[in-house]
């Protein structure tokens, strides 16, 4: 190795060191500490903490002895999967529309991005006000003006009744899942904020497709669906994977919007973890739960990668 290469290498090392130091102090050490806590029964005392070793018992108990944990996983899976399906289908549709040439396209695109910039707390408050279950709620008012809701009927949108209770299969499904109406409405509110991100990622993918591919497709007599499957989809595949991974991460950990709107009454796993860890101050169990959440997300990611790259392997 020449002297020059040596000095280059040491300079690059100096460039990484501050960040590595910060990461060590504020990320890695706390996470390791958190993992150690998760192996203990940990209770706070003034100026410190009492630890009592339990090994993997915290994890074991959640997995095999705690129906509340599995209920929260069930709700979280519902929230994650339904949101993902809506975001992907609507997102693809909107992206395909906005990818065509039309009047004032760049202005429309700029406007579409705006909800994504709305802070989560503001988003929660905004939809709380739209869903207000009285005369002033915008959604109730809107439906009444359209004649879809009787004038003296006010729906409590963020309520706990089972949605579609009289629809045969659907009502039974929601009842069995324990999904209250409020959760469905929160999915809509959350989708409103995140859709722009999905749309823009897909648009970036659509722009990489050479236009003449579609012309070739037309000459071969392919219909729109066939063209989507054989031309568009292969280009969007890596982007779908990115969206799935990113969004699963955020959806599975959801906390802010549900906490602000419903406090502890819809126990998705994020809320449940917070309740165990910070409300009841059971630090050991709370930490164990948070690592379980990460494991679930990792499982999802591995499944996506397997599904998407099966044929190439």
């Amino acid at each position, binding site marked *: 190795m020449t002297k020059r290469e040596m000095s280059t290498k040491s300079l690059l090392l100096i460039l990484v060191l501050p960040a590595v130091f910060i990461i060590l102090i504020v990320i890695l050490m706390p996470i390791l500490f958190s993992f150690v806590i998760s192996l203990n029964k940990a209770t706070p005392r003034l100026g410190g903490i009492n630890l009592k070793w339990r090994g993997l018992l915290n994890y074991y108990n959640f997995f095999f002895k705690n129906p509340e944990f599995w209920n929260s996983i069930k709700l979280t899976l519902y929230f994650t999967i339904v949101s993902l399906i809506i975001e992907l289908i609507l997102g693809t549709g909107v992206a395909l529309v906005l990818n065509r040439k039309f009047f004032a396209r760049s202005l429309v695109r700029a406007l579409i991005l705006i909800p994504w910039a709305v*802070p989560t707390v503001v988003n929660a408050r905004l939809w709380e006000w739209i869903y207000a279950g009285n005369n002033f709620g915008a959604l109730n008012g809107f439906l009444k003006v359209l004649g879809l809701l009787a004038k003296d009927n006010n729906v409590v949108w963020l309520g706990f009744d089972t949605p579609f209770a009289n629809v045969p299969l659907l009502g039974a499904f929601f009842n069995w899942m324990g999904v209250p109406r409020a959760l469905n409405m929160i999915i809509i509110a959350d989708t409103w904020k995140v859709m722009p991100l999905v749309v823009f990622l897909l648009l970036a993918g659509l722009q990489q497709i050479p236009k003449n591919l579609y012309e070739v497709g037309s000459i071969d007599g392919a219909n729109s669906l066939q063209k989507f499957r054989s031309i568009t989809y292969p280009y969007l595949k890596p982007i779908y994977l990115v969206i799935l991974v990113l969004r699963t991460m955020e959806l599975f950990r959801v906390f802010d919007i549900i906490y602000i709107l419903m406090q502890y009454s819809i126990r998705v796993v994020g809320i449940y*973890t917070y309740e165990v860890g910070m409300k009841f101050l059971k630090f050991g169990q709370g930490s164990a739960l948070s690592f379980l959440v990460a494991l679930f997300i990792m499982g999802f990611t591995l499944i996506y990668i397997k599904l998407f790259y099966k044929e190439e392997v």
Partner: protein
Amino acid sequence: MVKKVSTKKIIKGTSFYLLIIIILLWTLLPLAWLFLSSIFPYKELISNRLGHWIPSHATFKHYLSFFNPEEDISSRFLAAMRNSLIVASVTTIICLFFGSLAAYAVVRIEFRFKKTMVLSLMFIRMLPTITLIIPFFIIVNLIDTRLINFFGADVHLFDSRSLLIILYTSFTLGFVIWIMRGFYLTMPEELEDAARIDGLTRLQTVFKIVMPLSANGLVATGVLAFLLAWDEFILALIFTRTENAVTLPLFIAELGSQYIHDFTQISAAGVIACLPPFILVLIFQRFIVSGLTMGSVKG
């Protein structure tokens, strides 16, 4: 020659623009309602006003009350605004500076645990925030009891902007490294080699060639980091209490629970909290989109 336009084409064109209008309405109506609610007089907003969406006596007094020192609400609001701006900006600068240098070095040098490091950055992003909250809660508690014993009750980490900056750095830095890494992966190394043949040292190359070339990426990542910090809620909920450190999201969340649900006030605060991100996103729209795609697709 008169172009023959078939009815089928007209229907297709009209339904296409109809779709765009529906998309725009879905996007903008909730925001329009947020703004309209903020300029309604409170009494009119909660009166019987079916099908009546625009205030007959629009007022900006809810906005003004936040800035009027004689109103009770204003000191906490102004403190929250100041804290949010300071914490988000400082976090962004710290993360951008150290994060981009680290990302550059990670791309340009080979070392033994590189792959492990990149993968663990990924795993850390999958952990929920509460994983960090519990250890920090204990550590801060530990440090603060010592500090208070030594220096008296005024010196503490809890409920301080410095603590928030440390906490926000801890979840933003990894994100910044991740995105900037994607950016540097696409930057050809030949350019730097050429600069060094011209006699620039490696350090000069970094600051005179690499940084200016990555300006787009830095701007995009900076805006994203700022938005992340501006949006943060759960850490502020646990680690702040008073005007020392309370942030805007926490202030707005409290407005809804502590007092009566005065949605004129909540909406006005919401509109104000939206302004900095809106301005950033509209100005840097192109950069942000390219930043998001490069960080994620190249990962």
